[in-house]
């Protein structure tokens, strides 16, 4: 069990041991870091490829289409074809564009998207750097991508790009607050900012449920808020206003082509995986198995199973929900998500200080459901949602 669980860790140690004979001693830490980086890039870049084909096929089926089915068996080599196409395409840069900033923007977007993986524990003992302030690192580096988005939009000298960038920045700034606030409750209860320690705090099984935070009232509310905010941070439908095809062509990366365009997609998906991974770490027990009986499955496998589950959820919501309007987006962030996230902090505190038992569940549940109903009523007020009628059709 431990053999399979730690197979990658052992592999790395073995590799380092082999290299120690060849390389000078001073270079070993560098090589160790490089090995971790290579592993992260390879795994998540291939996950990007898998997700694109899954998303296209899944969306197709949701819309009663086949989806890509030509390249390779059942179309599963489509990402490779897309990648080759992006690589050999002509790279066009608008003449009026700010050449340097235009070139730097996609790089600046991909680098933070990859950097945040440094603190994600993808398995037992499998984290590149165990920062004491890992969560802060995650959000700090993630915040840097906003500037890259702005750079892309501004340097293109295109009205759609600039509008898309402004929308993206406004949206990311707004949704970062509920995103961070919903994680603060976890930080409060675990007393640490280190993702590794947060995962360790969720080990064990109380009754028939694992000790994951999602199985508490505040944890569940926090998880839902976190996932909605993550969806908005990743600019995915229904929060895809910054790149709404029907309004802004492609938003801030309208003027990008070829491989730079592919880099934007890569960065978008990488940050989606990263933020999903963080959601898993914070609320879904990280790499922990749900039941003690399932402990024989390696920890990294659990992490990726959960990650795939969340990816499916993202694809499903993308296939279901229509795009929001800008005012709806901002109202939702500031009038619904933010108060709920703040109340959720209170819920977490109450949960922490009440003794275990039924009353704790009742109070916690009431503190989650009550505000949800009240705020939801406020959000729905004045809107008469009924079956849509088409006056001029038929």
């Amino acid at each position, binding site marked *: 069990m431990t053999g399979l669980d730690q197979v990658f860790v052992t592999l790395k140690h073995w590799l380092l041991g082999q290299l120690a004979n060849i390389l000078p001693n001073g270079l070993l830490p560098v090589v160790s870091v490089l090995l971790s980086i290579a592993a992260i890039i390879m795994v998540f870049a291939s996950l990007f490829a898998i997700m694109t084909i899954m998303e296209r096929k899944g969306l197709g*089926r*949701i819309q009663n289409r086949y989806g890509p089915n030509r390249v390779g068996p059942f179309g599963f080599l489509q990402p490779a074809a897309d990648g080759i196409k992006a690589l050999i395409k002509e790279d066009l840069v608008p003449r009026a564009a700010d050449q340097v900033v235009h070139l730097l923007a996609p790089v600046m977007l991909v680098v933070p998207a990859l950097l945040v993986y440094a603190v994600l524990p993808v398995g037992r003992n499998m984290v590149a750097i165990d920062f004491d302030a890992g969560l802060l690192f995650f959000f700090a580096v993630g915040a840097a991508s906003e500037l890259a988005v702005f750079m892309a939009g501004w340097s293109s000298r295109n009205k759609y790009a600039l509008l898309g960038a402004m929308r993206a920045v406004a949206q990311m700034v707004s949704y970062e607050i509920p995103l961070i606030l919903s994680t603060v409750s976890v930080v409060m209860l675990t007393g640490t900012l280190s993702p590794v320690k947060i995962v360790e705090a969720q080990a064990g099984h109380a009754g028939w449920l694992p000790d994951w935070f999602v199985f508490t009232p505040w944890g569940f509310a926090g998880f839902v808020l976190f996932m909605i905010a993550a969806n908005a941070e990743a600019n995915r439908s229904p929060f895809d206003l910054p790149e709404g095809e029907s309004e802004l062509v492609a938003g801030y990366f309208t003027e990008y082509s070829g491989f730079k365009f592919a880099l934007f997609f890569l960065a978008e998906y990488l940050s989606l995986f990263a933020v999903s991974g963080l959601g898993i770490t914070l609320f879904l027990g990280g790499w922990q198995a749900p039941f003690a009986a399932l402990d024989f499955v390696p920890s990294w496998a659990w992490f990726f199973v959960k990650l795939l589950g969340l990816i499916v959820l993202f694809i499903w919501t993308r296939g279901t929900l229509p795009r929001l309007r800008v005012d709806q987006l901002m109202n939702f962030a500031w009038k619904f998500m933010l108060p709920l996230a703040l109340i959720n902090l209170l819920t977490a505190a109450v949960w922490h200080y009440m003794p275990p038992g039924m009353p704790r569940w009742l109070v916690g549940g009431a503190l989650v459901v009550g505000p949800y109903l009240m705020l*939801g*009523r406020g*959000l729905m007020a004045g809107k008469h949602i009924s079956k849509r009628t088409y006056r001029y059709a038929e």
Partner: protein
Amino acid sequence: MLGEGIIKGMAETARNFLGSYVSDDRLTTVQYPEERTPQFENARQFPFLVFDGSDPLKGLRCVACQICEKECPPKCIYIVKSKDKRPDYKGQMQLYPVTFDIDLSVCMSCQICVEVCPFESIKMDTAYELSTSDRFGGLLVSKPQLAKPNDHYRKIHPTDAALSDAALAAEVAKAQAKARADAEAKAKVAAEAKAKAAAPNPVAPVVAIA
């Protein structure tokens, strides 16, 4: 309640997702290169030039009047008139196009050239696989490629072709009738001229003009 609609929608898409694997009737798309949906009769893609008879270059109905060139909204037609004339289907002497080019990359399939053509000579084709590997020369379609026989037109647009043929036949008939009338009038004038030569009549020129 807030969120109720989202759950309903998720259920609906899940039903679609699973249903598409169960029943093939749900899938509305076709596997294109192998399988094609039938085209409607009024489908239109790109214009072609109609010719009568067997020789595409001699039988072209086009008389290079350049109306289509002027009316084309994206200005994708380019015509060069001939210096000489040749008889058209009615036997009338007409110019003909030396060059007739249409830029495939510019044409927007609006069919205005067809609507304005007084000679039933430009029509819309239904072929839609028009891509080429040469993006400069290959997209400029010239006269030999554009010329297609009337039978082709009858095949792709039977109703329109019948109307067009009828109109042309009517015009030919009219032209023949006119020619006959002209011949008769000429004969009459000649006869009258003969008569006039015998006995001068001041009314005769008026009749001849009428």
